[in-house]
């Protein structure tokens, strides 16, 4: 009877396509908005996640996220190093500076000062040059988006210069740093040099990056650092979440995206649900005839579920295809770089679509199950 169900479904082309497009549109909207939301909300922690050498971030106890920092004192680095279980600890500066291009165009930049000796915290994804060139005087590595901003239309190249705090900044490399939330250019330099680029501040030590000794867990070492120094110690994952939650709690982003997602969910449930229900109601007489000639309720439920699965599956596949095409177009565009379509979103939307078509078919099934087959004798 499956082919009967499928033919009943596709025979009314207008309804069939409106069902599919409603689901496709809803799943596209959901997948698109959720993916963009995740992509944007990953940006506040992008500089934290780009540091792959260290597992532990130590900071002032009142620090909420990496975007707003109250500097530590220099001796805090040694206090952290002295905690049992710490394999090594190095300083990291993170702050904002202003860089000016050769044509006078200036912009606020995120400046990261990495440990001079070990270069822990330096970018690992380089498009041009090497992190070891940071040893050179006035050297800095700029990210791709920053280079495009200061030198629009020029091919990627080193040895270009910027000016920060009336000092020359020599570009020795171009990194593929993750996009920051504010879309500022990202510059990496040596810790000792960062002070010169940002001007006089009494304390420069934004963070201490640490590594647990072999056999020690990150959580245990964090606990020990906090107990021994009174500072705050977070794992990379925890600190990334801190940034994510800070933006969730302190910006309108989740509300705006939440509204869009809710609208997509409501539209995606109501329109296909209603259309599918009407489709079933219009076929009630035929279902009644099938019941009269001896098709069991179970078989009819199977037919309706098959119709729902075909509609839901086709609409979902179409929606995911459109979403994938959308992100394929935008992933290499600088302002939207890093915003991708995670497979988890795709799986989540599958569950949502399953719920939507399940709900729609449940209402339809109920109507068919209570249908008296004697209805076929009514003209």
């Amino acid at each position, binding site marked *: *009877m499956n082919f*009967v169900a499928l033919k*009943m479904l596709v025979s009314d082309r207008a309804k069939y396509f409106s069902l599919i497009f409603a689901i496709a549109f809803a799943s596209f909207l959901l997948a698109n908005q959720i993916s963009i939301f995740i992509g944007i909300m990953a940006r506040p922690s992008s500089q934290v996640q780009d540091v792959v050498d260290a597992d532990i971030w130590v900071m002032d106890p009142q620090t909420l996220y990496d975007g707003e920092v109250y500097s530590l004192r220099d001796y805090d680095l040694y206090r952290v190093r002295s905690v049992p279980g710490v394999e090594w600890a190095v300083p990291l500066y993170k702050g904002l500076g202003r860089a000016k291009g050769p044509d006078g165009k200036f912009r606020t930049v995120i400046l990261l000062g990495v440990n001079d000796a070990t270069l822990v915290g330096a970018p690992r994804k380089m498009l041009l040059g090497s992190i070891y060139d940071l040893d050179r005087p006035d050297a800095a590595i700029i990210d791709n988006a920053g280079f495009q901003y200061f030198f629009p239309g020029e091919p990627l190249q080193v040895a270009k210069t910027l000016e920060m705090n009336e000092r020359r900044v020599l570009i020795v490399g171009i990194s593929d740093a993750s996009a920051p939330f504010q879309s500022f250019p990202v510059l990496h330099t040596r810790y000792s040099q960062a002070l010169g680029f940002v001007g006089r501040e009494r304390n420069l030590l934004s963070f201490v990056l640490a590594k647990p000794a072999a056999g020690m867990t990150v959580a245990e070492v964090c606990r020990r650092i906090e107990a021994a120094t009174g500072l705050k110690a977070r794992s990379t994952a925890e600190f990334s979440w801190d940034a994510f939650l800070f933006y969730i709690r302190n910006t309108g982003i989740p509300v705006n995206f939440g509204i869009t997602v809710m609208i997509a969910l409501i539209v995606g449930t109501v329109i296909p649900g209603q259309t599918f229900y009407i489709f079933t109601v219009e076929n009630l007489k035929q279902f009644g005839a099938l019941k009269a*000639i*001896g098709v069991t309720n179970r*078989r009819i439920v199977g037919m309706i579920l098959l119709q729902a699965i075909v509609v839901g599956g086709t609409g979902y596949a179409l929606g995911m295809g459109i979403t994938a095409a959308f992100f394929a177009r935008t992933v290499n565009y600088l302002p939207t770089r890093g915003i991708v379509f995670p497979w988890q979103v795709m799986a989540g939307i599958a569950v949502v679509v399953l719920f939507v078509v399940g709900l729609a078919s449940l209402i339809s099934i109920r109507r068919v199950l209570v249908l008296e087959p*004697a209805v076929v004798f009514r*003209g």
Partner: protein
Amino acid sequence: MATDGIAVFSRDVTKVFGRGETQVHALRGIDLKIRLGELTMLVGPSGSGKTTLLSVITGLLDATSGELVVLGQRPAELSQEELILFRRKNLGFVFQQYNLIPALTAVENVAVSLLAGGVKRRQAVARGEEFLEILGVAHRAHALPSELSGGEQQRVALARALIHEPRLIVGDEPTSALDGQTGHAVMELLRATAVRPDRAVIIVTHDARIFDFADQIAHMDDGQIVSLEENRKNGALTNVFATASAAS
């Protein structure tokens, strides 16, 4: 009770819809015997209970009281599942509005009765083509119902009712949507193909033009059989049973 040669036996069957003040007595003590090998018509004005009686006989509705035996089975004693299987195996339906599935071709519509019984699609369609051939509409096998005339649609519906070789065929106003000539042709075909010694046919109708095709006519009014006539071969219908509703 002996049921040899009897397709349907009913004694004092009633059907009541609703409760209290809104109660409707659709059937009021139906006594009826329908023999195998015969075509019985249930006739009467609208609201007389013809269709309700047909629904009760086919197990689509439960009788409220009384004794009913259909092809040796008591529908009241069957579970819902057993009743569905009983209908699928033993009953063929011809509806007033044909009730063909618009999305299926004529031959696929015919095959549905077999598909419901688990027959493979290819086999069912091949058998459907044979039946359309018998009923003279093989050339329309791959047409959709919307492309068929009323007479053709009713022939397809008849093929669907016959294809699984049921022992009881029921028709609800099978000619009411057809013009006189087409209705006559459909009844001739029904009579020729459906009536067999091991099978009974029950037709609900108020189309007097087809009364001649009946072996037995049960006249109904107000939920009762008010008269029962038998058709002597090629002769006039003879009233063999009559009861006045006023007398009850």
